[in-house]
Each structure stands twice: as C-alpha cells, then as structure tokens.
C-alpha cells in the first residue's frame, strides 16, 4: 500500500459495534472492570485509552516501527527518552538542537548525574571521539533546527551501535511521510506532533516510535509512571490531522521549493539554508535518506534589524514559535525558539543572530512570494 493510502486506511475503532468511520473520543478517566481479579484491556486513561491506542498503533505503522507512544508534548516525549538513562550515563547530542531540548539537557538532566556532550554530528570522526564507555544515547535532529543541516543517519546508526548505544532521531521537521529514521537504523523515532503530524496548530503532542519490544516496555513504563500520555481529545485531533499529512506536505514543500529559489536569487538575502536547493551541500545526502527536503527553511540578511523587520512586515507569515502548520510562520531562533540554548553552546553552534526561520504553509505560492518580496523591500529600504 502506498503512503497516501496508509494514511487513511486503518481500523479507526477496533471492535466497536457501531462501526464508526472516525475514532470515538473516549473522554473518560477510568474504565469499569468486568472482574475483580483480572484487569481488562483498559483500567485508567493515564495507563491506556482506546482513542490513544488507535493513534499509537497508526503512528507505529506509519514510522515502520512496532510500538508507538503519544505524549502531552514533544518535550514530554524527549524527557521520556532520557529516562532510559541513569545517573552516571552520558548523552551525546548534535550541536544544532531545538532550544527546549537543550534546556532539558542543561537544566534538568544534568542535575541527575547524566552528562550531555555536544558535537557536530556531520563530522563522524569528531562525533565519535566524544563517545565514552558511559555514552548510552545519541540524540540528533535531521535536518536540524534551525540551520537545516543534514546528518547521515545510516552512518550515525552504525557508529552508535558499534558503541552499544541507542540512536534517537527527532524527526519533527520531516514527519513519517518524508523520512523514517527506524528504516535508516535509528532505535527511536521521535516527533513533536505539534508540527507536521498535527499540521493545524491545534494540538500540542509528542510521539515516540520504536521497533523493539524491550525498549517499548521501558517507554511504556515511564509514560504510565510519570503520567505524560496524550489526552483523548488531542489524540482525536491528531488522528484527523494525520489523514491529510501527504496532501499538506506536498503542497507546503512545493511552496517551499519556490520560495527557497526566490530567496536564493534575491540580492538582499545573504544565505538560504534549505536542503532542497541543488546547490546545497546537503542536497544529495538529503535525497539519499529522505523523500523530500520539507518546508522549513532559514535565511540570513546580514543584519538582525533587517531580519526582524522582515518578520514584522510580512503579513502571511505570523511571528510564532513552532512550525509545520498549514499557516506560514516566521521566527528569529536566536531570540525566540532557541533563546534557552546556553550562550557557550550558542557560540559554538555558529547560529547567526540574523537568522530567520520560516515555515511554509499551504497559502497560494504567489501570495507568499509577493508578501516576502514586499517585506524584504520595506525592511531594507527602511534601513537605508
């Protein structure tokens, strides 16, 4: 079955006597037990809920894994992955990571004797040098956020496994439609489902998919113990959003391609970061491991003021954190989504202060380009 069909062809309500075409929302905290001494499939919604089960199974299938888990946020999913470690263990992470992940690593994890090292995962030799006998988890995004750097996931998976560690790939910027980290050798595929999977900015959620029974058991244990599972109503919204994943991304990616080309040829734009541009050094690698470059891209203008002004003058591009929605958005990672990255790491990462990240929605391509054109024009003429 092709991906577009897989998105909508699943049993929405296993065993339901009314055969609904959409999954019922089991908005309940608890479930009656048929017998005292044996617990049925569901007992308490923190531990399991039928609406969530449909979603979790669907996501496991879409990511080519065996077990899926949904969380109250992408950060709750990442926090759960870090619970696979104990005091004394280490994490090795790529240096271009979402600010919230850095905050988790630097403000919470390190209080429990779990050290986090950062290195450039695009340089396998340098990256491997940072692996110690204590390294239990390698954590990367690809393409990265916000520099859209592409990491060779197959190579990284081999390296990880040679050292007996686990590889977790945050696949939020791609979605299962464009990239399947488990197929490339990763042990854990993770999503902020708030982004492409939800697609409408109407749900905050996180996803973990694994392909290994023992790992699944550990993840489930933490999800239940810490009470971080996604609520039934949000599961329903996510189930609905996922059905149009391919339609949305096809459209968003087409728009992004045209906008990247427009920006790359614009004389006021210094650099465009997008693995979909044929001149990008990541173009071939991205094609070898993903089915598209996505619809998030970044650019620099040479001036923080100009980048800020573009964000403020652009009318279709709302200034928001987050990405992946049908609505276009723009942000300045240095001051918004990545403000929580420690200054030292920020310097090491070479995150340009004038970097603007845009997430392309499903608006008309010509409208979006015209809007950026006028915003760039106003921003640069104001400056001079």
């Amino acid at each position, binding site marked *: 079955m092709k991906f577009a069909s897989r998105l909508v062809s699943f049993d929405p309500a296993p065993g339901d006597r009314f055969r609904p075409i959409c999954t019922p929302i089991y*908005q*309940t*905290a*608890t*479930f*009656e*037990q*048929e*017998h*005292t*001494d044996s617990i049925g499939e569901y007992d*308490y*919604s*923190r531990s399991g809920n039928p609406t969530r089960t449909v979603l979790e199974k669907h996501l496991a299938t879409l990511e080519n894994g065996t077990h899926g888990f949904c969380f*109250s*946020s992408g*950060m*709750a*999913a*990442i*926090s759960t992955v870090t*619970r696979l470690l*104990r*005091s004394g263990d280490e994490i090795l992470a790529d240096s271009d990571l979402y600010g*919230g992940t850095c*905050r*988790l690593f630097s*403000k*919470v994890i390190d*209080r*429990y*004797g*779990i050290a986090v090292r950062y290195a450039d995962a695009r340089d396998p030799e340098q990256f491997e040098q940072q692996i110690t006998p204590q390294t239990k988890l390698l954590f990367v995004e690809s393409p990265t956020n916000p520099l859209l750097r592409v990491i060779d996931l197959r190579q990284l998976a081999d390296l990880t496994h040679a050292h007996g560690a686990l590889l977790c790939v945050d696949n939020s910027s791609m979605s299962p439609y464009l990239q399947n980290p488990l197929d490339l050798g990763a042990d854990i595929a993770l999503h902020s489902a708030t982004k492409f999977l939800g697609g409408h*900015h*109407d*749900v*905050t959620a*996180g996803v973990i998919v694994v392909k290994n029974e023992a790992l699944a058991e550990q993840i489930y*244990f*933490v999800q239940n*113990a*810490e*009470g*971080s*599972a*996604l*609520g039934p*109503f*949000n599961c329903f919204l996510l189930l609905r959003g996922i059905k149009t994943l391919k339609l949305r991304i096809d459209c968003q990616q087409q728009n992004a391609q045209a906008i990247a080309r427009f920006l790359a040829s614009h004389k006021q734009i210094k650099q465009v970061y997008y693995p979909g541009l044929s001149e990008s050094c990541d173009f071939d690698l991205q094609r070898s491991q993903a089915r598209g470059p996505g619809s998030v891209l970044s650019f620099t203008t040479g001036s923080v003021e100009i980048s*800020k002004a573009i*964000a*403020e003058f652009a009318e279709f591009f*709302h*200034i*928001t*954190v*987050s990405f992946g*929605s049908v609505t276009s*958005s723009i942000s300045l990672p240095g*001051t918004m989504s990545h403000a929580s990255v420690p200054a030292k790491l920020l310097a090491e990462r070479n995150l340009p202060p004038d970097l603007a990240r845009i997430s392309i929605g499903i608006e008309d391509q010509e409208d979006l380009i015209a809007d950026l054109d006028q915003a760039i024009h106003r921003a640069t003429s104001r400056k001079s």
Partner: protein
Amino acid sequence: MSTHDLNDSTVAIHGGRTLDSHASSILFPLYQTSTFVHDAVGVNKGFSYSRVSNPTVDALEKAIGALEATPPAVCFRTGMAAITTLLLSVLKTGDHAIVSDVVYGGTMRLFRVVLDNLGITASFVDTSDVANVEAAITPATRIVLIETPGNPTLKLTDIEAVSQVTRRHSILLAVDNTFLTPILQKPLDLGADISILSTTKYIDGHNMTVGGSIATRDEKLLERLCLIRKTLGTTQAPFEAWLTLQGIKTLPARLRLHCEGAAVIARWLETHPAVKYVLYPGLDSFPQKALAEKQQRAPGAMIAFELKAGAEAAIQTLNSVQLCLRAESLGGLETLITHPSSTTHADVDPELRRRLGISDGLIRLSVGLEAPEDIIADLEQAFAAAVSGVATKEVAHEIR
C-alpha cells in the same frame, strides 16, 4: 469583593473567574491552539506556546488558586505528572525525600523505579506519628510528601504537627490533598508549603479527564515549577482544562452530597454482621477521629472496609455488585468499588501491603451521588452472594 470574603461554594463558581473580553461568554472559551501570534519579534500578549501557557489552562489555574487561597495553581497533564514535575523541580542526585507509607501506589512506583535511577532516595515512614518524620530527616532531606487521608486505609497525618518539624529543618512540606480537596481541608492554612491534587478525582468530579495541580504561596517555587513544567512538557491540555473548569463549579455542592451518602453507608457497614471493620473518619470508631475533626471540615467520601469472610469474599463481593462500578479512580458521580491489593496498590510489595493494613480482603469505596439506600441494597445483595458463594460472574452479568 475579595475572594477572602466569600464562601467556598461561591468561590468555586466565581473565584479567579477569567472574563472573556471578546464575546462576554459566560463560559471562558476553549483555546484549542498550540501557538500564539506575536505582535512583533519578542513581543506577545502573555501567551506564546501552549506547552508553556494557554489562556484556558490559565483560567483553570486561577480557579484552583482561588479555592486554595494561593496565587494561580500550576496544572499538569495528570496527577502523576504533577508529582513528577514537583519532585524533579526540588530534588537532584543525592537528595532525599520522606513520604507517607500509606500513599497511592503510583507515587511509590515513581520513587522506586524512576527517581531511584536518578540517584534520589526516599524513606517511606508512618507519618501519622510526627516523631517518625523527625527521625527520618537526614542532611540530604529536601521534601516531605504526605497523603492525608492516605490511600486506601485513610490513615491521617497531622499536617500542622509535621509542618512544625519541616519548618524547623527548612524542608518543604507537600500534601497530596486529592481525597478531600481544598473545600474540606486546606493544607496551606495548616502550615504546608505545597498542596497537590489529582484533579481527575473530585475537582473534575465526572470522570471526564485526568489531570493534576500544584498550589503554593512560594513565588520562587511557582516560578521553578513553571520552568520545569515547560521543560518536561507536562502541561495540562486546553480541552481537559476546560472540562475541569466546569467541574469545579459544583465541587462544594457535590462534596456535600458525597459526604452525606458516605456517612450513611459507613454507619450501615459498621452494623452489618458480615463486616469485620470499617475505616471512615466520620465514625466514632475511627482511631483518628479527633485529628479528622481538627484538620478536616468533613470526613470525606472514601470508605475502606473488610469482610469477616476474608479475601475471597471481597473478590466475590466486587464481582457481584450491580450498581457500584468496579473501577480504579475515585471522586466521580458513580460509586466505585476497588480492590486495592490487586489494582491501585498492586505494585506495592505484598509484605509491605500487609504491614500497612492493605490486606487482600480490603475493599475501598468511593461513594458517588446515587441515593445511599440504593448503594446499600446493592452491597447487601453482593455480600449475600459473596458469603453464600453462589454468585458467579455470569449470573451477575445477566442481571445487569
């Protein structure tokens, strides 16, 4: 009019009420959105991303804060997410916590399996004797977490007495107040620093949602809780917050009925020849009745009891009820009957369960809002069926 001048039943409806400034809707809107548009780079109207904060969740936090007589509470995805976030906010590797030995099994599991991996230790002590709390304090102790009444045996801990000890040692005192809610017990007024609620229970009251909240007057701690909550992503969702917000309004009215029904059922149980003992803070026979009267405004609506015929009869009783529902959780409109040793406390070591009085024959009842006589009739037939041993699961289901 300040909230302080109002009665709880008024505060539940109007306390911390957030006005909808756009459409003047009586009910605050459900902001089912993940993100908010900024006016300019770095300028927003107080909301940016719903994992950090959301207007509907904020409205719930104000409403709970009004009941707790604290600044707005902090709401979480579940009660366990509240406890997890609190503990990760205040404890680091090497730190120590003191926890009531009679406590929800999930709280125990969190310490034993998750926090232990992070190098955090805990002593589970009988906090009903304050000397045990004092004796368990080490230089590494950062927090005392008590549950009163404790789940499921309803053992009470003297909040005021423990708070004197924790204050002297500069340790935080957190009270899981889920069984009573701030309507029936105000831990912060009794000296505690932190009040924890599983809002899944009486606060929601309709078994619609799972959720948790933490209230404190410690502004620094509030700030830290919000930082760790956004970092761990354990924030309550807007839809659940909206449902919970509606539940709160009837909380005082519901609790009055819950308690009335529980008192009738507890007295009936106590006189029943098949019943070995009943634990209910409103009964004269309750060993800590004086303490209940001192720190609680009412005995609550949770009852624990054991049958003379033992564990097998308890299981048969649960399998024979027709009106009471066999389900975990508590605090909803439906009377729930639970067998703690095989469900809520199944993860607790059997030997420890015995020591804590959580026998295999113990039955926990969360008294709902049905007419107490109907629940009594149901229990009566279930006892009869259990004791005579004729009840089979199949028969029970045909009747239903």
